[in-house]
């Protein structure tokens, strides 16, 4: 059996340079010394039982709460107090007493394990103070910076609010102007339309006359062609040689069908051929000339749809990211398009009908058109300004609607981006917008999440940002990123990791989370022992 680990330990604490000795059972904190009175029966701290004092720290667990063995590993739920003079005192689970691992910097937990521990408390204390010192400095400076940020944000906000108010006013004026010009435009367009219609009608009539002429010529030509025996009549059999005329398109042109085409007549002369021609001219192929190209309506080129290149995209996840990006951009593009003058190519005339161009407008009509065009241009210009103004107002309002913290101290992060380069990737954090990852050596960017919400602990939700709904993971969830904010002078991404698949963690320092110093304690930690 093990030796009795006798209970009394000497604790040296340093305070104001004066060494002080305090006797108490091993592992008992000063605050509980009073419960461990030598040579008096010990009552478990939970009151469950009372035992002779020699069973305190006798390496056997008598109390359910473990309080009789503060200095041994006997109780499964006990705890051991390390004084750690020069550093911070701490409790460790009893199971770490004499387990061969140095837990207390003052080495008091390993008094019987053979572990060679060195007292590192002074060192740790010094380092901790240095760290705290540094942190305090950083925090102090950071806090100053934060005040500036708050000021700037306040100013910026006021400015923006003022700007919005001004812009609203301008917008109103522009709106009035747009309406006025719309009336001017519409007034000018009415006579333009009428003049154009007149012109068009005249031209249509002219074209109809020309077409009739041509048709007649064709008919005459066809008659001559069909009239194989040149007897001045086209007979059923002559017509039957033109298989393309088959009305039911079953491949054979029967006699009955031909008779049908010929209106029941056996043969027709040039004058009666006219009614036959009406029946056959759409299908008729000239024997001498090559086939006329059938007028195929080429579908007008619609506004280009984004073509998804499926073949080069075997992996859906990349696909998604790009598409999403594209979508965003495209939306903007479309928007701009809308602002531009309506495309003039969309004229109502069917231009394919004839190669002959429409004759120019007469000077009167042209004058009306010019006038209307000018009215349109004026209108569109003002309307565009109006829309731009509206966009700007909306953008500012959107910005103003973000939760930039209790004092708007996070405002300055808006529309900024911060990058961190690792061995493989460049990570990019654009606060209140998105997080992304791009391979260093080529490859497309992956969206690691778009702005979701503040999601820090209840007492300060502004310590954590959550970005969600990033690019979907292959067979997994959508990527998301948690950004932890810590106080720092600089605004910088300090680290990124992926603790769980497709769940990223980013550390980000900013002055905006720096708290007022003053409550950081720089004095040595042993004072509570004394």
């Amino acid at each position, binding site marked *: *059996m093990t030796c009795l680990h006798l209970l009394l330990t000497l604790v040296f604490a340093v305070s104001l340079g004066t060494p002080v000795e305090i006797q108490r059972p091993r592992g008992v904190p000063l605050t509980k010394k009073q419960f461990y009175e030598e040579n008096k029966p010990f009552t478990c701290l939970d009151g469950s039982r009372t035992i002779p004092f020699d069973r305190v720290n006798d390496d056997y667990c008598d109390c359910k709460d473990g309080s009789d063995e503060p200095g041994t590993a006997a109780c499964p739920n006990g705890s051991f107090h390390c004084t750690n003079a020069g550093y911070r005192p701490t409790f460790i689970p009893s199971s770490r007493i004499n387990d061969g*691992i140095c837990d207390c910097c003052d080495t008091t937990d390993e008094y019987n394990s053979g572990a060679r521990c060195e007292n590192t408390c002074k060192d740790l204390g010094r380092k901790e103070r240095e760290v705290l010192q540094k942190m305090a400095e950083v925090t102090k400076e950071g806090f100053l910076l934060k005040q500036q940020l708050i000021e700037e944000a306040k100013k910026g906000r006021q400015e923006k609010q003022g700007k919005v108010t001004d812009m609203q006013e301008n917008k109103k004026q522009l709106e009035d102007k747009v309406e006025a010009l719309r009336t001017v435009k519409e007034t000018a367009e009415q006579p333009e339309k009428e003049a154009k219609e007149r012109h068009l009608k005249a031209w249509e009539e002219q074209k109809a006359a020309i077409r009739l002429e041509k048709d007649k010529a064709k008919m005459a030509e066809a008659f001559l062609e069909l009239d194989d025996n040149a007897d001045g009549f086209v007979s059923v059999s002559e017509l039957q040689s033109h298989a393309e005329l088959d009305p039911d398109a079953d491949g054979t042109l029967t006699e009955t069908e031909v008779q049908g085409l010929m209106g029941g007549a056996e043969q027709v002369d040039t004058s009666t051929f006219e009614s036959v021609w009406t029946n056959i001219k759409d299908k008729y192929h000239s024997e001498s000339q090559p086939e006329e190209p059938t007028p195929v309506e080429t579908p007008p080129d619609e506004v280009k749809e984004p073509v998804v290149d499926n073949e080069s995209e075997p*992996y859906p996840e990349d696909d998604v990211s790009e598409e999403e990006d594209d979508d965003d951009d495209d939306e903007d593009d479309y928007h701009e398009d809308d602002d531009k003058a309506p495309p003039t190519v969309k004229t109502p005339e069917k231009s394919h009908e004839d190669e002959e161009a429409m004759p120019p407008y007469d000077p009167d009509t042209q004058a009306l058109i010019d006038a209307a065009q000018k009215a349109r241009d004026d209108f569109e210009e003002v309307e565009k300004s109006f829309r731009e103004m509206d966009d700007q107002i909306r953008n500012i309002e959107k910005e103003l609607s973000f939760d930039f913290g209790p004092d708007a101290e996070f405002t300055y992060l808006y529309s900024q981006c911060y990058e961190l380069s690792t061995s493989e990737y460049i990570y990019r954090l654009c606060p209140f917008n998105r997080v992304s990852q791009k391979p260093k050596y080529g490859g497309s960017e*992956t969206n690691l999440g778009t702005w979701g919400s503040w999601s820090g602990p209840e007492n300060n939700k502004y310590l954590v940002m959550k970005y969600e709904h990033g690019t979907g*993971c292959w067979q997994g969830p959508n990527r998301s990123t948690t950004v932890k904010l810590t106080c720092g002078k600089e605004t910088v991404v300090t680290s990124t990791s992926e*603790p769980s698949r497709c769940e990223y963690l980013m550390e980000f320092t900013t002055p905006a989370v720096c708290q007022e110093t003053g409550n950081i304690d720089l004095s040595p930690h042993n004072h509570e022992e004394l």
Partner: protein
Amino acid sequence: MAVISIERMGLLSVVCLSLFFSSAIAVDRGNFKTCDQSAFCKRQRALKPSQSPYRALLETLELSDSRLTLQLINDNNKVHLLLELYRLQGNMTRVKINELKPLKPRFEVPDVLIAEPPTEPLSVLSKDDNGVVLSLGAESQRLIVSARPFRLDIMEGPEVLLSLNSRGLLAFEHLRLRKDTQAQPDGAEVKESVDGDQQQDEGEKDEDGESDKEEDGLWEETFKSHTDTKPNGPTSISLDFSLPGVEHVYGIPEHADDLKLKTTDGGEPYRLYNLDVFQYELYNPMALYGSIPVMLAHNTQRTMGIFWLNAAETWVDISSNTAGKTVFGKMLDFVQGSSEKPQTDVRWISESGIIDVFIMLGPKPSDVFSQYASLTGTQSFPPLASLGYHQCRWNYNDQDDVKSVDQGFDQHDIPYDFIWLDIEHADGKRYFTWDPHKFPQPKEMLQGLMDKRRKMVAIVDPHIKVDSDYKIHNEITSKDFYVKNKDGRNYEGWCWPGNSGYPDFTKPEMRAWWASMFSYDQYEGSMENLFTWNDMNEPSVFNGPEVTMHKDALHGKWEHRDIHNIYGLYVQMATAEGQTQRSGGVERPFVLTRAVFAGSQRYGAVWTGDNAAEWDHLKISIPMCLSLGLVGVSFCGADVGGFFKNPSTELLVRWYQTGAYQPFFRAHAHLDTTRREPWLFGPENTALIREVIRQRYALLPYWYQLFFQAHKTGMPVMRPLWVDYPKDTATFTIDDEFLIGSDLLVHPVTEEGSRGVTAYLPGAGEVWYDVHTFQKHNGAQNLYIPVTLSSIPVFQRGGSIIPRKDRVRRSSACMENDPYTLYVALSPKKFAAGELYIDDGHSFNYDTKREFIHRSLTFANNALTSSNLCPDCNFVTSSWIEKVLILGASKPSKVLLKMDGKETPVDFEFETSMSVLTLRKPGMNAGADWTLLLQ
């Protein structure tokens, strides 16, 4: 990380995309063969029981001291076979059948038997024209060789224990020359592929209108896009075994199925072919990662075993004359006295090699275990730490991640011994290397763990990236150690690193070289607390047939077909050897494998592969490990939490509770799952998981002692109830609870939302104590136990003594010198016995220097005595006995400790409601002789 999935997808695009995507829900059965799709299985299975065409040529009988030989002839094709019979020491019979004069040698599996099994003399009792009767020594056991048709019967007294070829299914496809090389096409002869049954076969084939040569797959066979060229033609073998009086057969792992094997009539046979099955399905006979061709047969009178030593693809058919009969039906038979005797018939079919069968005649379960152990060896004795808790994940991302997980355990006061690194730790899946960005300072990381007295496992898979800048690849290439394809070039396949070579582990020189790669100067960044995990050693070949190697690949002169199922064993063997060598043979290795074969138990631990976070997968972990335990592999576990998918919190907690009471206790998770370290599910669940891991650590002395016992005797650590209660038929099909050793009975809660379980407590006249409340329950009853989320029903057998270390610390090493508490659970006759085993926990000194303590603890006549089971052993422990709990005791007036001729009083407390007597701090050294007297 994105890079991982992109890289992975790039690498596996051809094969694995279909594999992964199509099987989002479960296994893609289409990737794996049915018997019908495996030409030899289809041919053999088409053969129905009938009169065997084989005849024993008694005039060729030769009997020497150790063996009997006899020729067999197939009357249909006149091919002669040579039968060898051996009577082996320890009540076993070995039956070997090979071609008398094969065209070239047929493969006989080496390296599985630990030695040539010692024989005992056979003697002829009688002989006539009909056959020969041989004596098998004691107990009036006889072996009867019948000549016409050939069959073997093993008798004991008037009882037939087991018959071979009684259904005439002995079939031996002899080696032959290929027809198209003979220039005289002879359709008829092809049909005699299965030598025994050409008539019937012929008829059937003609009816089917099959063009026999192509369809038979005799000389070529195609599955999906893969063609097996089969240069040796048909080589399969088959034999049937009949087991009169047997209704329960077990074993032949690895299958995700019940403990009791089912009949396969009308369904698929059980398949033994080591395969990397993605998201395997439960409750079916499909092949999995391991194959151990050993079957146990059990009834109330006797336990026997059949060990079919063949490493080729194997199928096992089981039929029973009582299957399908209801209990009522059986009773009716009994009442009417008309019942035929129950009988189980088994048939083994293998693609190549010879028939080499060991019949283990028991008669007790423990006899079969020791018989099998005498052939293939026992469970390796693992380092104590490896019985602790293992924390694994695919993948811990980098050194910082490892560090923070390690700290997480301390912050939450949860013990663990090993943290694991999966494939992402290596530089581009080049095993034996470290990713320079994520793990730039492996030794620093390992030292950090060592400072906490903890350890690490890093994965080393047997597929080697083909990369001329990779040392391992270059050395294997220069030494010509790769497996060859049929054309004699290095075989290459796709696996994690992309294009990979597969070292030929069947070569002893290759294994020796591989082992040398684990020395500290070769394996850069390794330290003595780094151990190894061999995954993918079926071998897994992403673009190979059935995700494994082509059967016509070559291992020296043998085809992969011949050796397939033993490849994984060799990988683990060489790895374990390397780990032993690196310490100069002083330290025990720890190697985890996925693929196993008969004999794998000698090299380390095994886990049940890529399971899923589903309740049924939790349930199946019990029969899967029980089945492995029955055939030698005790160190078994399933991924706690489930590998694929995310477990619900309840499932995770229940899995920890179950896993803590299974031999190999490791949590593992797929790359795509969310993190699931034990403290991520709220303080309540953290506490539940902490509690059950602590229970595991407190019981480590018992686990360790059981592994010592398994190592010495072959007794399984985790056992079905029938092993200890062989006459209690109620136990024969139980596989939702199990025993750890003989003394702990565990009934894990494996149902979602469970409010209670019904546990069967065996043993009429025995008692069991709830280990948490010490409440006593009678044996031979179904006990309903209400449960909460914190419950894990565990009972200690009345009559047992279990030593525990109740001071649980952050790793097993930290508990080395801690005192013991003895849990003495009294039988109704106020008796109890147990053992205590102590050694250094990690070296071979227990073996080489006999440095261990092995004590017997006995409670009888109101005295608890510790006596030495190994007087010539020497080991000094500083552990002592801090407490003794006697369950089911009565209150003594005083308690005395007798030691070194002195008597000293011992304080005690008696708790009346549960009759628990607690002896306070008796204080004797754990290695000492002592007696505690209750007066």
